[in-house]
């Protein structure tokens, strides 16, 4: 199989050989001619003439030889690779148990990484499924996919007039500009479906929506661009492939059918392609409705006229030749200009202040996404986490390979002895690792397939899975392949190098002995231990990093869950009633609120009841600009405060602590003096060092209200948010319109969830037609609001636990191995009078020294890594001593357990056995 000689490759080398060969010929011919009687000069000239064009023959020969060399080399390498693969497969089949363990752990590691990357790909990397997404430019804050902001013009969301300005007058930056906005909950039914009410997910879109995206209809047609011409002129919708399948059984006759949405009859004109899930990543849209239908479906919301109602996000297709930078500058200037032309009421912002307002004009290839905003950081964190986990797995596999390399020491020595090169052996061992790695990767893809679905399910709030398209597509497969190759190098290289260094003489000499000892021989003794032990220390260090990360997240979650929110969190029930469905507004709405509140208050088990427009940890949020006499705003944001409209006795009902002044009462009605409650953050901000009571606030340049009370800060919607300025207006004093909402806060004496049915019955008794949305305990809503944190924590804890288990198994393996090797020594010690306790202490000491080494390396690593988590921690620092302590404690206990088993085994060694083995 091995060639007796091998030609060196290389141009000069080949050229020399050709030169020698041709020179030999000409010399021979010359000599022959001289022998025939020619003079040397004449002979040489004749020889050259007979030969012909030496230079061209020479260069032809060199070219041919180079080709041949390359072909030979390639064939040789391929042949060796084939041999190595066949040999590796045969070896692995003979060690099926070993192979299964390695492939299994690798599959878990690679699978976990691929699952995570599949999510990263779907959420952060993949472009939306439209034609040439790279040509798109996005205008608006991509995370505000279903926001409506009223009260003042903005630049992070567009109002309809602002959108049409940009669409019609953008200096040809884009060839088309679309807009889309939320619909809120839709009440829809299909004409002949027996009037079953359903709530498809809709989106209002501009008439050019499908044209700009370049998405054709899969059936029927899409909007033709004329639908926006007049309000209500185009009562048509395009439905998604999913909705067509789910609700209409893919019936082609569905096109042309009429459905009623929020009271308006609209015709289905087409179905979008199956691949098209809309421009919002992480939500799926069932129905696209022209913007011009908004006033027809929601007659009380003036969302197409009002410049201070911002709710649209926009995508434009860049004109060929226009760069993203030019679009950013151009649209940015237009947006800033709009704020000067249409100033925020009551705000005289200087051009300087306006220019400082953040503009959102960015690449539009990934569309918009709330999910992306929420999960970008956790996903990257988790990706780092699974990456570490894979490293630990690699260390474990490396250790297994090392152990096996020792067992194969003789095989290697024999192969070295018969002349196999060291590089050749390393290559063969790496091929073996590569086979393991690729098998692991293949199995890992299977793990990833359900792993990513599982992750998505865990990230979703239970009711419905976040509609993300998860695919094992090219980037994912490439990621997996690269990952497994890297893993192979990480776990395979050291053992391969180590094995190929097998000390010939000593391994051969110790052959008999190592067979008897059931483990490595003398040759291995001095060398295997340090690398194996270093790997264990490394595993311990990496596990510590993961454990500290997990402990920090767990502590942070605990802090969030137990933090004071300024509410009676354990006793509140939040009840959402749909007043719009029954057309309540004005006085009727006020009366309904007072009546229902009184009815609910009479129920047994209810301590107090009040109501609000926005609700707690659900529903909506409101903000407005305020002016305070004597306060000079440095910035626009200084004038913004959140607010809610709340019922009588609100502070008492929700369990808020009144710091000063009074709560709202039934008397804070329409013609009474206008009043407000503010939170302590707002009080401190506008009136530092003095009492806010009696001070007045002008809200959005219209009505002035007087502060009558200050409450302790309440976390209304997010547990982990920093306190914001917030004020409360009396619901009865500022009746909300039909577009408003009504939510009751019911404070129970016991478990609020137990009240749920009684509350529903009582509302039905007051108005049987009034739809009741959610009736949820506040603790439930809070838990939902920290879904993301809980997921991150759960996964991090899972990774930490798995890492710990692997490190413990590694430690156990190495210690067991060490003890097997030292059976004789231990037996001798026992024979010489060492007590069992001494043996246990000795073995434990050895193990714990390794762990200590890992900890010493791991602590700085963990502290460094924790810095990456800093933004995801709430209420604790990245170097929280408690978290570090817990992680170290868990690690120490696990290490002791893992080392104790081999230690006890060692203590049980009978001197006779050990001596007999020798």
């Amino acid at each position: 199989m091995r060639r007796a000689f091998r030609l060196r490759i290389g141009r000069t080398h080949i050229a020399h050989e050709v030169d020698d060969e041709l020179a030999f010929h000409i010399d021979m011919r010359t000599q022959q001619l001289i022998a025939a009687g020619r003079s040397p000069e004449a002979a040489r000239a004749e020889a050259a003439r007979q030969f012909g064009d030496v230079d061209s023959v020479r260069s032809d020969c060199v070219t041919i030889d180079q080709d041949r060399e390359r072909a030979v080399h390639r064939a040789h390498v391929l042949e060796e690779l084939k041999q190595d693969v066949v040999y590796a497969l045969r070896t692995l089949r003979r060690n099926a148990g070993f192979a299964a363990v390695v492939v299994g752990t690798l599959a878990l590691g690679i699978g976990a990484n691929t699952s995570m990357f599949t999510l990263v790909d779907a959420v952060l990397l993949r472009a939306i499924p439209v034609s040439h997404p790279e040509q798109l430019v996005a205008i608006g804050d991509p995370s505000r996919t279903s926001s409506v902001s009223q009260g003042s013009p903005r630049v992070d969301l567009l109002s309809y007039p602002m959108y049409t300005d940009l669409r019609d007058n953008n200096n040809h930056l884009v060839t088309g500009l679309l807009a889309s906005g939320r619909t809120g909950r839709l009440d829809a039914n299909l004409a002949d479906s027996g009037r079953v009410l359903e709530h498809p997910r809709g989106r209002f879109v501009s008439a050019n929506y499908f044209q700009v995206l370049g998405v054709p209809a899969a059936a029927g047609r899409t909007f033709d661009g004329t639908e926006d011409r007049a309000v209500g002129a185009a009562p048509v919708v395009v439905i998604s492939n999913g909705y067509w399948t789910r609700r209409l059984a893919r019936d082609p006759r569905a096109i042309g059918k009429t459905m009623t949405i929020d009271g308006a009859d609209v015709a289905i004109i087409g179905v979008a392609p199956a691949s098209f899930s809309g421009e919002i990543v992480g939500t799926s849209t069932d129905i696209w409705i022209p913007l011009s239908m908004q006033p027809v479906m929601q007659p009380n919301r003036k969302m197409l006229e009002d410049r201070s109602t911002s709710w649209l996000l926009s995508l434009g297709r860049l004109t060929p030749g226009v760069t993203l930078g030019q679009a950013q500058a151009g649209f940015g200037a237009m947006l800033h200009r709009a704020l000067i032309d249409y100033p925020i009421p009551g705000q005289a912002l200087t051009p300087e202040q306006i220019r400082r307002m953040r503009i959102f004009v960015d690449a539009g290839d990934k569309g918009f996404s709330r999910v992306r905003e929420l999960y970008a950081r956790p996903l990257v964190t988790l990706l780092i986490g699974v990456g570490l986990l894979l490293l630990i797995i690699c260390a474990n596999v490396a250790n297994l390979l090392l152990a096996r390399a020792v067992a194969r020491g003789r095989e290697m020595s024999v192969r070295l002895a018969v002349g196999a090169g060291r590089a050749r052996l390393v290559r063969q061992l790496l091929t073996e690792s590569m086979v393991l790695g690729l098998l692991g990767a293949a199995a890992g893809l299977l793990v990833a397939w359900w792993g990513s679905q599982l992750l998505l399910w865990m990230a979703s709030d239970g009711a419905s899975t976040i509609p993300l398209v998860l695919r094992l597509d090219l980037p994912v497969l490439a990621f997996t392949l690269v990952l497994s190759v890297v893993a192979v190098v990480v776990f395979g290289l050291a053992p391969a190098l180590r094995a190929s260094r097998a000390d010939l003489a000593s391994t051969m000499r110790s052959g008999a002995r190592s067979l008897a000892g059931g483990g490595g021989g003398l040759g291995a003794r001095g060398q295997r231990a340090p690398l194996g032990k270093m790997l264990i220390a490394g595993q311990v260090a990496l596990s510590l990093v993961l454990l500290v990360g997990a402990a920090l997240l767990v502590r942070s979650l605990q802090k969030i869950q137990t933090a004071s929110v300024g509410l009676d969190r354990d006793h509140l029930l939040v009840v959402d009633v749909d007043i719009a469905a029954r057309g309540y507004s004005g006085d009727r709405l006020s009366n309904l609120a007072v009546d229902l509140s009184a009815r609910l208050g009479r129920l047994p088990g209810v301590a107090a009841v009040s109501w609000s427009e926005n609700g707690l940890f659900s529903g909506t949020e409101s903000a407005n600009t305020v002016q305070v006499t004597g306060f000079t705003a440095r910035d626009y944001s200084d004038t913004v405060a959140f607010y809610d409209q709340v019922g009588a006795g609100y502070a008492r009902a929700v369990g808020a602590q009144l710091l000063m002044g009074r709560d709202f009462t039934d008397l804070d009605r329409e013609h009474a003096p206008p009043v407000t409650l503010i939170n302590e953050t707002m009080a401190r901000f506008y009136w530092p060092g003095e009492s806010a009571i009696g001070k007045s606030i002008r809200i959005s340049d219209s009505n002035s209200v007087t502060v009558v009370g200050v409450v302790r800060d309440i976390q209304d919607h997010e547990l982990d948010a920093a306190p914001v300025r917030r004020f409360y207006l009396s619901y009865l004093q500022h009746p909300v319109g039909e577009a408003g909402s009504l939510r009751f806060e019911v404070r129970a004496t016991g478990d609020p969830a137990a009240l749920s049915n009684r509350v529903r019955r009582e509302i039905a008794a007051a108005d049987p037609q009034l739809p009741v949305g959610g009736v949820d305990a506040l603790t439930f809503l809070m838990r939902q609001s920290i879904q993301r944190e809980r997921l991150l924590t759960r996964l991090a804890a899972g990774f930490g636990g798995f890492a710990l288990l692997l490190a413990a198994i590694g430690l156990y393996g190495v210690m067991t191995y060490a003890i097997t090797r030292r059976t004789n020594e231990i037996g001798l010690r026992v024979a010489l009078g060492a007590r069992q306790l001494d043996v246990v202490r000795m073995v434990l000491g050895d193990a714990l020294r390794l762990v200590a080494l890992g900890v010493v390396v791991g602590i700085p690593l963990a502290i460094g890594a924790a810095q990456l988590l800093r933004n995801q921690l709430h209420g604790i620092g990245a170097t929280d001593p408690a978290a570090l302590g817990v992680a170290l404690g868990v690690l120490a206990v696990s290490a002791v357990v893992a080392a104790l088993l081999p230690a006890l085994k060692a203590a049980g060694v009978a001197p006779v056995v050990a001596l007999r083995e020798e």
Partner: protein
Amino acid sequence: MLDPDGGLLRGTLDILILKAVNWGPRHGYEIAEWVKTITEDDLLVEEGPLYTALHRLEKRGWLSAEWGVSENNRRAKYYQLTASGRRQLRAEVSSWERYVRAIAKALAATSPVTA
């Protein structure tokens, strides 16, 4: 066989080379001399192309080469037939003979044969 310019027909040189090393390893000069002797100086107009052909045949795997020492004690590159070279020689010889027989038959014809 000569082409109109007095050169060897394509492929003819290959078969001669293969034949030249049929009895054992030879270096290029020996092969050239053998070809000259055996064809009475008629065929090989220039010796250079012989070497291009040798290297090409080596690349095809019909010849293998090894450096050795010549009769006058100089380093020389010796060519010898490989197993596939031997098969190739047999194949070429038999197809050459078929060709020659066919031509000879045609030239020996005494009357036009019509279909």
